[in-house]
């Protein structure tokens, strides 16, 4: 058996050493240079030095590649021949891709709504209880787990054994106990999409809980007290006091989750690799560009993802401008 050999691993540590040395060198030089900068009021030059590393990396690593991707989306698989809008036409006419688009739509609708609702209910239920910190930590925990890890955890929950009565997947065992038949949950469309979406909801609910709980605690006590004196019941309190007071936080949570659902890749890759009708745009982009060597199609899908988030970018920039003008 070829056991793991520590000597084989040594070059990696050498590489790590080089990386850390490079880091110390670069940051050291930068600190030296900014120390020697002319006086406080000569802002222009100082700003250039401070912004140089980040600016350069963003230019090489994001802005130039993004422009190049737009260009590539009008070329063929190898990036050699211009094909006009062919890649986009393919995207909106190919049956398999139609399904991918429908799946992504399902993710973007269900994940933010269900995860936010669950997170909000949970945040209210545990508010000011003795075990609040623990309760929050339990639901928040999946946020620290990788999508790959979460994918395996849930693949295990959905595990299906066709040959025996004994199921090792929790879900199938529950179904059997209740008198039903075990199912291969991840194979049967279109429902398998829902079982993948449940995993994302499981991951994201903790995020909603933490952000919304902080927001609920910031509601001024007088407002709650005034409403209580008016004799509102719990239901009215929720809709007329809690929800309006935490609206900004709700919007942030919903928007963040929509973007996350839109770009979702790892979960689908780990659990089904996009087979059985479960692919989504980000997964298909990866498959086209890096598995099937269809750079043009992959780039077109990336551009499509970008177009979908553009309204969010515009909205965010407007909000940011307004906030900065208030100051």
């Amino acid at each position, binding site marked *: 058996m070829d056991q793991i050999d520590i000597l084989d691993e040594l070059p990696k540590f050498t590489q790590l050493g080089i990386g850390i040395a490079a880091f110390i060198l670069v940051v050291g030089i930068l600190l030296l240079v900014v120390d020697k900068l002319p006086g406080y009021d000569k802002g222009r030059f100082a700003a250039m030095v401070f912004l140089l590393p980040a600016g350069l990396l963003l230019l090489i690593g994001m802005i130039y590649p993004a422009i190049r991707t737009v260009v590539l989306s009008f070329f063929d698989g190898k990036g050699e021949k211009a094909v006009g809008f062919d890649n986009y036409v393919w995207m909106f006419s190919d049956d398999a891709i139609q399904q991918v688009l429908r799946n992504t739509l399902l993710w973007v609708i269900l994940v933010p709504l269900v995860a936010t609702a669950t997170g909000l209910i949970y945040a209210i239920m545990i508010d000011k209880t003795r075990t609040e910190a623990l309760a929050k930590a339990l639901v928040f925990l999946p946020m620290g787990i990788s999508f790959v890890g979460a994918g395996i955890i849930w693949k295990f929950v959905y595990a299906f054994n066709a040959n025996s009565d004994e199921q090792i997947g929790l879900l199938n065992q529950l179904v059997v106990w209740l008198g039903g038949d075990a199912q291969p949950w991840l194979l049967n469309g279109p429902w398998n999409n829902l079982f993948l979406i449940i995993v994302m909801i499981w991951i994201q609910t903790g995020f909603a809980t933490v952000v919304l709980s902080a927001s609920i605690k910031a509601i001024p006590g007088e407002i709650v007290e005034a409403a209580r004196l008016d004799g509102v019941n719990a239901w009215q309190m929720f809709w007329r006091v809690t929800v309006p007071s935490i609206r900004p936080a709700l919007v942030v949570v919903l928007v963040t989750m929509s973007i996350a659902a839109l770009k979702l890749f790892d979960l689908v890759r780990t659990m089904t690799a996009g087979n059985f009708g479960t692919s989504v745009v980000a997964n298909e982009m990866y498959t086209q560009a890096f598995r099937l060597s269809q750079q043009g199609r992959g780039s077109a899908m990336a*551009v499509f993802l970008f177009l979908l988030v553009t309204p969010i970018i515009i909205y965010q920039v407007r909000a940011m401008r307004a906030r900065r003008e208030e100051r």
Partner: protein
Amino acid sequence: MTTLTPMAGKPAAKGGKPETRRAKAKKRLTSRTASVIALIIAILWTTPTFGLLLSSFRPAEEIKTSGWWTFFANPSFTFDNYAEVLLSDSSAGRLGSYFINSLVITIPSVLFPVAFAAFAAYALSWIRFKGRDTLFIGIFALQVVPLQMALVPLLSFFSSNFALEDEGKFIQIWFAHTCFALPFAVFLLHNFMSELPGDVIEAARVDGANHGTIFRKVVLPLVTPALASLTIFQFLWVWNDLLVALVFGSGQDTSPMTVRLAELAGSRGEEWQRLTAGAFISIIVPLIVFLSLQRYFVRGLLAGSVKG
């Protein structure tokens, strides 16, 4: 994305006038329903992870033939799965090698963006120059741009200009992670730095300090908590990443654990003894970081919200 600065606050004041007996009874009832619902959610959310953890310590034969809940009736315990998946031959996983890759990827991919973002955020918050606001808003907007937009050209940029091989590919992974992290990192640190009181900076300036000194001696010490929360974010992001590693790494030389686990889940989907132990190894490191430093993580979350 959006600032949530006004959210942290004092908990609402309790009290008020004495309640009637009926109201009290009703309140107790609703609070009991609330507790039950909360308990159900808490159980639903923890059981899957618990099942995986427990299974990773069961003998391979038992994992494949009986559910983990039978452990309580028939307990048997082993570390074999961990030894197998970590150390043995490559077909069984050899996760040890990939664990090292994860470490080698993560450390520089956290250090570089945090440092560079700190420099940039300082310039954007405290140096006056023309076009500063436009620049900041540009970087802010980049946060939402899907990193899919950069993958294909960045990979061909590396393969056509540098031809990195074997362990050398770590460099392109570090580079990609650093670039993709910067917009969020700059934004988060800018949020904290621009909130610092102006008179502190002003006092240093009157003492004759230049921007380098103010950055190093005044601003950096004051934003240490922000640096901590950014470090945790970036650590979790890089350690848990699959996409960047799949595109820029390759094989046993540079791929992190996530890539290997995703492979195992696909090609050996029924070898649960390896998958459970392997998944738990990859989960435990971020979980320790996460739980011990959760305070900083939540603070960052509330100040910046997360990138996608």
